[in-house]
């Protein structure tokens, strides 16, 4: 159910496995992409994050911790 | 040519609109010998990109320096287009970058060209979209002379990038001509 819409606190998120993305908030800085130990994330054509290899995600939360824009949440 | 032209270059921070405005002002003022005033708006404190740059070009004195109803509106983003289009002067020209502006307003005098993608494809760098835009404006509206804008561009761009920018300008001229 990749890309399923989820509402959290009235805000819309999209779920990809353990990951929840808010692409409205993402500014495409690439920090999450660069430092994901599993190369799960990528920056898209529209200069925003997307989940490339959902299945590789270990839920380590490093992307959430380092995203300056609170645009990624990791469910554990 | 009219006595007075008001231009607004709008888009997002980082698209080089401040530089474009300055070049346009220099072309008109220094090289074409007209009177000119250029203003721009800033974000909180000075940081971040301004969202618009305005140029008034006139044969006579320019008192009020701001642009209320532009004769020419360049919009490089959808947001800018939506925000500023209503202020366009009647009969004024709207130039949009169709790479970013997908929803056009119901208006006849629209020049819609994929400025950014042309910049990337034909010059190899997205960042010169602003210079391409200057070419389009020059050619399409004639507010400044081709020679003036070329001199202004060459004197303002960083050393070593003159070639690339000249090319961008030429591309702009061409599209401008084609869209006429």
């Amino acid at each position, binding site marked *: 159910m990749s890309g399923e819409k989820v509402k959290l*606190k*009235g805000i819309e998120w999209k779920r990809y496995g353990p990951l929840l993305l808010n692409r409205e908030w993402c*500014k495409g800085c690439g920090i999450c992409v660069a430092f994901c130990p599993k190369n799960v994330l990528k920056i898209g054509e529209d200069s925003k994050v997307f989940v490339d290899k959902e299945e590789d995600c270990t839920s380590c939360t490093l992307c959430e911790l380092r995203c*300056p*824009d*609170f645009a990624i949440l990791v469910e554990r | 040519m009219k006595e007075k032209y008001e231009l607004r270059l709008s888009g997002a921070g980082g698209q080089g609109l401040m530089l474009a405005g300055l070049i346009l002002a220099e072309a008109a003022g220094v090289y074409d010998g007209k009177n000119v005033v250029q203003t721009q708006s800033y974000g909180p404190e*000075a940081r971040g990109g301004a969202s618009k740059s305005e140029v008034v070009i006139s044969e006579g004195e320019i008192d009020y320096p701001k642009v209320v109803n532009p004769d020419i509106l360049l919009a490089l983003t959808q947001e800018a287009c939506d925000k500023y289009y209503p202020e366009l002067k009647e009969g004024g020209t709207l130039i949009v970058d169709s790479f970013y502006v997908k929803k056009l307003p119901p208006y006849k005098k629209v020049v819609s060209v994929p400025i950014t993608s042309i910049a990337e494809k034909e010059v190899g760098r997205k960042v010169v979209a602003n210079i391409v835009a200057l070419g389009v404006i020059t050619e399409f509206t004639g507010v400044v002379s081709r020679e003036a804008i070329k001199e202004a561009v060459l004197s303002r761009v960083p050393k070593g990038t003159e070639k690339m920018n000249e090319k961008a300008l030429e591309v702009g001229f061409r599209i401008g001509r084609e869209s006429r």
Partner: protein
Amino acid sequence: MAKSLEYIRLDKFPHVWCPGCGIGIVMGSIIRAVDKMEINKNDVVMVSGIGCSGRMPGYCDFNTLHTTHGRALSFATGIKLANPKFKVITVMGDGDALAIGGNHLIHAARRNIDILAIIINNWIYGMTGGQYSPTTPLGSFATTAPYGQVEPPFDVLKLIKGSGASYIARGTVYHIRELDKLISGGLQKKGFAVVEVISQCPTSFGRRNKMGSAVEMMKRQKEETVPVKKAEKMSKEELKGKIVRGLFLDEERDEYTERYEKLIAKAKEVHQK
């Protein structure tokens, strides 16, 4: 960890900071520290000065106060002394805390008042477009240092150590788990706690100093810092060009508002006689 969202003023998002700016990362870390301590949000006051970092309180669902440039700690001192029940956090930029606000910083440290002071050190005046700050490294470029900086920077932690304070730490936004620990430790400390956070400003500092993207700048944080434990074993030569990070001081000292409560008790006694 959707919990962070409970501490955010969601309707103000997305925030004003530039893509890749480290300030948002610091904000996340502070929020997790508050959450960890389970403090009631009504009892938290976040105070800032002026600067990019000064915008943080606007996004946090606490009692928030955005003051004047450099003065955050003086407002914070009033709040804390007036009502010691508050957990007071100040967020300051390097210019805010160390240039115009330097005096308030050393005096808050001297008093050892129970405030957590976060200094977001991006080596530059971000908000005003990149003038040098008292932490800008020698030789770096800034809009007001077109020939390279000639003023030596403060060693922030030495300065604070020389002033007082109970808790002194330095982290980076790259070393995020460590930063969480340092900030959380500071928040738990009774007394004046300073956490200097090295953070990237790609817009006003990185670009002018050809440091590349935010990602590149964070990689430098990794490469150019060493943990305090490791640094102790390194020679001066080896430490050259390195920044030491970690916990530098964690001391028990009498806290100011507690001392003041004792003074009140004494005064009341005198008064009753």
